């Protein structure tokens, strides 16, 4: 059964958001990394880029497939996680902690309302 932490919000495209003040940290869920299995490559957006909610902004590749990652919220990228570029397996090992993708400054806190609660996400993935 996939881990679905209670303190996060979720996008139906399997990204999670952790909010602290007006900073949002974004990553992919345990369910997503388990589906992909061995992640071998990660491409992250540039710091400073402004994203709209649901905009494709990163790519993860496993041995067999490439998947787009969509930003669950709108905002400007303030930091990206070089650790997962150097060691993509970190995303599989620690999808909610060390495997985070990027942080952004929230442009519109209202975006968070449109995301799924942990229970709603659990229901979506059949948990």
């Amino acid at each position, binding site marked *: 059964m996939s881990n679905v932490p209670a303190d996060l919000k979720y996008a139906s495209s399997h990204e999670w958001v952790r909010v602290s003040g007006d900073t949002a940290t974004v990553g992919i869920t345990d369910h997503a990394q388990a589906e992909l*299995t061995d992640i*071998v490559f990660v491409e992250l957006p540039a710091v400073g880029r402004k994203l709209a909610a649901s905009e494709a902004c990163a790519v993860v*590749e*496993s041995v*067999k497939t*490439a998947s787009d990652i969509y930003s669950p919220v709108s905002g400007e990228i303030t930091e990206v996680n070089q650790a997962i570029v150097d060691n993509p397996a970190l995303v599989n090992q620690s999808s909610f902690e060390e495997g985070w993708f990027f942080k952004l400054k929230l442009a519109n806190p209202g975006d968070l309302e449109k995301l799924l609660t942990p229970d709603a996400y659990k229901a979506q993935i059949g948990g």
Partner: protein
Amino acid sequence: MSAELKRTPLFATHQSLNGRLIEFGGWEMPVQYTSIMGEHQTVRSAAGLFDICHMGEVFISGAGARDFLNWLLTNDVNKLVVGQGQYTQMCQEDGGTVDDLYLYRLTDKEYLLIINASRIEADVAWMETQLAAFPQRHLITFENRSDKYGAIALQGPKAVEFINEVFPGGSHAGTHVHRLTDLHKNQIATFNLKGTGSLCWVARTGYTGEDGFEIVTTASNILEVWDALMEAGKAHGLKPAGLGARDTLRTEVCYPLYGHELDEKTSPIEAGLGFFVSFEKGPFIGHDSLLAQKTNGPQKRCVAFKMTDKCAPPRPGYTVWNGETQVGQVVSGTLSPSLSAGIGLAYVKPELAKKDTVIHIDIRGKKYAAQVVAKPIYRKAV
């Protein structure tokens, strides 16, 4: 044509092992059980067990069999003694490839062809057409037993540690040995499965670049063969391995996959498989076209390459560039678990086929540098 996918005798086993099932050549097969990288490493360091029941088994026998097979296939069938196999191709008049396959001489006049799952229908139609026009056809029996037979591949350095206990005793038909592990590469013989005594053909061949064995037997025996091997191999690190690992393993050693390195518009000469084409044995379908390609040089050549820029893995279909000119296309590509780098095989213009040539691969809109390398890309440290 049935829209339903075919299932091998091991389907329930794959489900119980949590295999991730995908469509391959009309079959529902496991692409992985745990992880492609893990299964790949297990085959290279211990042993992996592959369900290859989806492949086809054709039996051709009779006084005219050898001459027919020499006409049909590129390699020299005269070289085969009883109990020996060879890698070979079946070509069209224009040199394009109908399929690549393994041919085994089982007894004096009986031969077994192991053909690709995706090509069973096309191969059988082709062979039947050629047979119908062959002068000695009344001295040849042709039987497609693909539905009645199955096969399992046991691959990896530890296979020799336990396979003898699963097939104890000496061989019967084929190569004469007292112990299964006395078979040399490309040799084949029948052995009895321990316990039930079910008779199986076992060949010392494989598609991974590791030592290993391929077991061919009737579909009704497949489950007990799989279970016996898993039981004996567990203590030696044996794990089930899926088609994902099968692909990364064969790509590392540059073995062709039909539909990628070979197809109806690509010849064995272009693929770099001239070693398996015998021009001295006499006439065969495609002889003249292949000889012309060999003499004049082919229009395209299959090269192995390794990414030198840090980037996403190359994949089939990606284009190959030399500066601003497209010079070819990737036919196989992946992240090499053994080398931790992107690797692949591509067709390029002949002048770029030299080792160390720098090429660029277009990966999702951006060009990244790669280097042409000698085959095989991965070689075991001795």
